[in-house]
């Protein structure tokens, strides 16, 4: 794209730039673009320019006096089509197509140094409105006008509060500006095509996956859900940004639940993802994976309950990826380094070692594929219209930077293209593709051997192998994601005396899991991928995490708190002709063999 480099010293310069754009016919700009200007972008740009020119400048309809003009205005339109098919107990429970267009209007008044988004007011700067599905420019602009009015009114109100609060409060520890100065980007990509799904066929396939679980009477509850979405994001700002980017994701998740005789609830899930449904694994592959999951869940139900333990452990690559995402990644989000209510775990650690020196961590949303598998956290532009950047977060164990949105912090004034949000939320620094690399690697077999060695050295009868862990958020959908917990789902005891590995249930990691990170001794040599959806204050965003398996010298665990409800009293209704999966058992299955199914 031809860089429309703007002078960006002060608000006035930004304004001038915007007026320049106003004067410049849009078609001239579009002529540089590879794609014709989509009508949605034209309509939103027209209204954006009109609003920015008139707000605070037009003669007021009432004698209320002159208002402060906004210094920044952006429209982000999400045009999403989602096909959802859900099944339970072997039959379809819902099958819908939803089409939704919505616009997030962001208005900022004051100055980049201090504006209406300051402190706790950050979330108030976004106003969302539903937009029509037809290219009706009149209705489009009218609705954007309604939302802009509401947003501007709220911005004026919040700015007043911000100013009052900042006058009465002691000086803030971090006196950074509220909004970074960035170059506006122009990139008109091709809007996403409508979702194409053979609904009848996929209803059968999702139901069939759910029906697999009918073979397992101890799987008391389950959900199978396919969701296929094609979304186009249109972004325009008063700084001159004009961006159109498509996004596609087909996601099929199967969750199975059971309850042990002592009342402990157990859960397992399998997720299959691809850009479109065609990219999903074959039905046979998915059914096999679901069956393996159910077999493991049944085994887990009968497994002994864990005992308090403090000793060596291996995290499988996939478990390590989730672990790094939850425990490290979230704490490296820029906004968590600023504000009284944040833990600021890493704020003062910049330039200092936070991991063993053989480990490095990057976040690279620009990477689309890893070993032929699509990365969920890939994007070209973030939710603030900034180009995605490969960011070296930790280099040879030393903390280098944070995941930055356009909200500056004391140590960094610029975005690094990680300002992300779901529709309707204010963007924050978030992860995209978090990748952990190691220079001290060894084979899986050697890792296991070293685990046993370490257990012996510490005088422990066994070490733990964490095969699968889940984020607390994924499981509980908690609204407050402050404590990014990890919940172990599948854990094995690896005995030092050569006994077969033993599945245990009810393992919960104690204390701050960060401590465990400094005790990583060596890693595996194969990176594993976790593709998922991550939830936090700025909503749900697709992410990936990649990491090798880890050997940790010390991991403290205890028994997780559990319910006391009994398993169901009557057996689950059966087809009559079906007898269930008696005889299938996982006893003696090695951790490594179990792990095969984890990779996508």
């Amino acid at each position: 794209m031809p860089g429309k480099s703007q002078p960006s010293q002060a608000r006035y310069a930004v304004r001038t730039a915007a007026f320049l754009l106003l004067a410049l016919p849009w078609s001239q700009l579009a002529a540089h673009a590879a794609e014709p200007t989509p009508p949605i972008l034209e309509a939103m740009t027209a209204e954006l320019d009109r609003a920015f020119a008139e707000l605070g400048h037009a003669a007021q309809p009432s004698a209320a006096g002159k208002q402060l003009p906004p210094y920044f205005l952006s429209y982000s339109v999400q045009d999403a089509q989602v096909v959802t098919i859900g099944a339970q107990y072997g039959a379809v429970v819902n099958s819908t197509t939803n089409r939704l267009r919505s616009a997030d209007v962001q208005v900022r008044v004051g100055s980049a140094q201090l504006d209406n988004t300051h402190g706790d007011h950050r979330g108030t700067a976004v106003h969302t409105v539903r937009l029509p599905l037809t290219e009706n420019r009149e209705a489009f602009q009218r609705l954007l006008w309604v939302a802009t009015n509401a947003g501007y009114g709220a911005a004026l109100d919040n700015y007043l509060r911000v100013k009052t609060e900042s006058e009465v409060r002691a000086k803030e520890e971090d006196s950074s500006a509220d909004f970074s100065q960035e170059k506006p980007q122009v990139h008109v990509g091709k809007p996403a095509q409508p979702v194409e799904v053979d609904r009848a066929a996929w209803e059968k396939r999702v139901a069939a996956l759910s029906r697999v679980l009918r073979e397992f009477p101890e799987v008391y509850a389950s959900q199978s859900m396919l969701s296929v979405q094609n979304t186009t994001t249109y972004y325009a700002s008063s700084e001159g940004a004009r961006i159109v980017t498509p996004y596609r994701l087909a996601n099929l998740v199967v969750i199975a639940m059971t309850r042990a005789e002592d009342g402990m609830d157990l859960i397992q899930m399998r997720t299959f993802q691809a850009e479109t449904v065609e990219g999903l694994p074959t039905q046979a592959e998915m059914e096999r994976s679901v069956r393996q999951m159910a077999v493991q869940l049944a085994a887990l139900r009968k497994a002994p309950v864990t005992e308090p333990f403090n000793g060596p452990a291996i995290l499988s690559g996939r478990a390590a990826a989730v672990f790094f995402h939850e425990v490290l990644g979230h704490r490296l989000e820029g906004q968590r380094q600023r504000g009284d209510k944040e833990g600021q775990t890493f704020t003062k650690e910049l330039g200092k070692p936070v991991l063993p020196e053989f480990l490095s961590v990057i976040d690279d949303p620009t990477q689309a594929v890893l070993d032929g598998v699509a990365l969920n956290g890939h994007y070209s532009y973030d939710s603030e219209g900034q180009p995605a950047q490969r960011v070296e977060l930790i280099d040879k164990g030393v903390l280098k930077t944070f995941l930055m949105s356009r909200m500056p912090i004391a140590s960094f004034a610029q975005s690094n293209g990680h300002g992300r949000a779901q529709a309707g939320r204010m963007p924050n620094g978030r992860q995209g593709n978090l990748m952990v690399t190691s220079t001290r690697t060894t084979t899986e077999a050697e890792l296991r051997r070293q685990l046993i060695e370490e257990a012996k050295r510490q005088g422990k009868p066994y070490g733990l192998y964490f095969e699968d862990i889940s984020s607390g958020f994924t499981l509980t959908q908690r609204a407050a994601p402050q404590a990014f917990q990890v919940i172990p789902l599948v854990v094995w005891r690896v005995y030092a005396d050569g006994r077969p590995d033993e599945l245990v249930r009810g393992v919960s990691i104690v204390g701050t899991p960060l401590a465990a990170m400094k005790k990583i001794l060596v890693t595996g040599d194969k990176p594993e991928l976790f593709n998922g959806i991550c939830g936090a204050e700025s909503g749900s965003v697709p992410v990936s995490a990649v990491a090798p398996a880890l050997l940790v010298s010390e991991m403290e665990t205890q028994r997780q708190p559990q319910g006391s409800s009994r398993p169901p009293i009557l057996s689950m209704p059966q087809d009559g002709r079906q007898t269930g999966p008696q005889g299938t058992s996982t006893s003696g299955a090695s951790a490594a063999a179990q792990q095969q199914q984890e990779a996508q």
Partner: protein
Amino acid sequence: MKRVAWLLAVVLSMGAVGAEAEKPATRADAEKDPVLRAMLKELDRSVEQLQLPGSLKPYFIQYRTEDVASYTARAEFGAIEGAGHAHHRVVVVTVRVGDRKADSSGSPADATAEQACVGDDEVALRSALWAATDRAYKVALASYAQKQAALKQVQTPPQANDFSEELPVIALGARARLEVEHGIWPERMMRVSGLYRAAENKKLAGGVVDGARAAFEAMARTTWLVTSEGTIVRKGTTSFEETFAASTQADDGMRLTRSYSSTGASVADLDAEEVFAKHAEELLSSLGDLRQAPLVEEEYHGPVLLSGDASADTLRALLSGVTAMRPRLGTEARTVGAFASSYHARVLPDFLEVVDDPTLKSFNGKALVGAYRVDDEGVTGEQVKLVEGGKLQGYLIGRQPVRDFPHSNGHGRAAIVGPARPHISVLKVTPREGMTNEALEKRMLEIARDRGLDHVYIVQTLGGVQFPRLLYRVGTDGKRTLVRGAALDDMDNRTLRSSVEAAGKDLWVANYTDDVPTTVLAPALLVDDVTVKRANEKNAKLPFYPPPR
């Protein structure tokens, strides 16, 4: 709250009309329906086998399956915003342990819901019932233990049993089917919501429309109900609704909102497009009138005439508490709410009578959405005389008895998810000697002159019980002026009892298509002493910049 005037919905199971004349249905008939077959099979298994060793067996189990198919088309400012189908099913399970005298009820076990498959897969449907039953039974056991402990804490025993004994009913109406020509509705909604343009140019007195929405919603709901007592019910209802809503601001920033709906049991019951459009246009021009209307005076005390429309809303709000609900344990109360101690006492002037009659399917040719044959506890709906000679003669009751009322009168009604509760159905308020509107106005002006008032008020429509949307100030010379920004005060049960001066002779039909559909048939009411004052809602800023043209 959605409310609909004069334009209505039939809700009674469409096919059930024919079924009523046929020979009584049997369990064998019911088992031809795959949903009922699955429900009965699982119910039998639960009745036979569900028991935790050492604990009580359930003495009553009820399964309800609700199937809801819907179609919606929404447009705003002349453009479609969304249109589509949805179809889902839930099962709602009730489990009671203990006995009729004292059981586990009053807990979530009264209605434990679980999503179910939309097709008729027997195992999947039974599995959903099984999961909900297991949860409900465990909750019921815990809640029964708590209830027994609580009973030991009070000296005064409960005033009535926990569960009434009723004769089982087998009633097999037809499944409801959603029949919508969905191609036409998006366009139609776009046309209606686009009417704001012409209005803004002509009728809005310089005002700006900041909301113009049209929506069409069609729903078909089938309910299957089976109980361990042998009740088997299938009933279907359909409802169609078209709404238009628009809003603007007065020059002082006051928000002005109006809406109009047309409702029916079939598309044929809805307004023709031209008729609906005419209502929408009138509504838009009323916004223009309201913009220019003066603000209501600061405070007024005196007679107010509630139109049938406004009266129906008011009576519904004030009389919907004539239900028999379980009182607090350890008290001698009969029920709860405004009418808890009013049995045989005066609640209305002696010239008003009130009945609630679910069997009343239509009135003056208009279908009534509150009507039904069998309620959601499987009890046949009965006409109930509530107020006679101004005195309270009874309560609306489901299967939860209260003192002096040991049986249900078929008023236990449930939203799609949730337990059945006593509820009004078709509430009919009839004056002994009703007056014409002219006579009512004349009488009101006489009162005004006697009290030295130079004007009175007529409430034409309400938006919520307290806030008139169309309110007219009427001078003693009969001159009417539309005013805005008012709130009504003192509209309470005391006013209803002692301040209603006279009533109109015609009954207004108001259908409310809420989760539990209801109808109110009400006369206009002349109320002797009401406070009208300024609502003093926050007046938001006018638009900061003009709308796009």
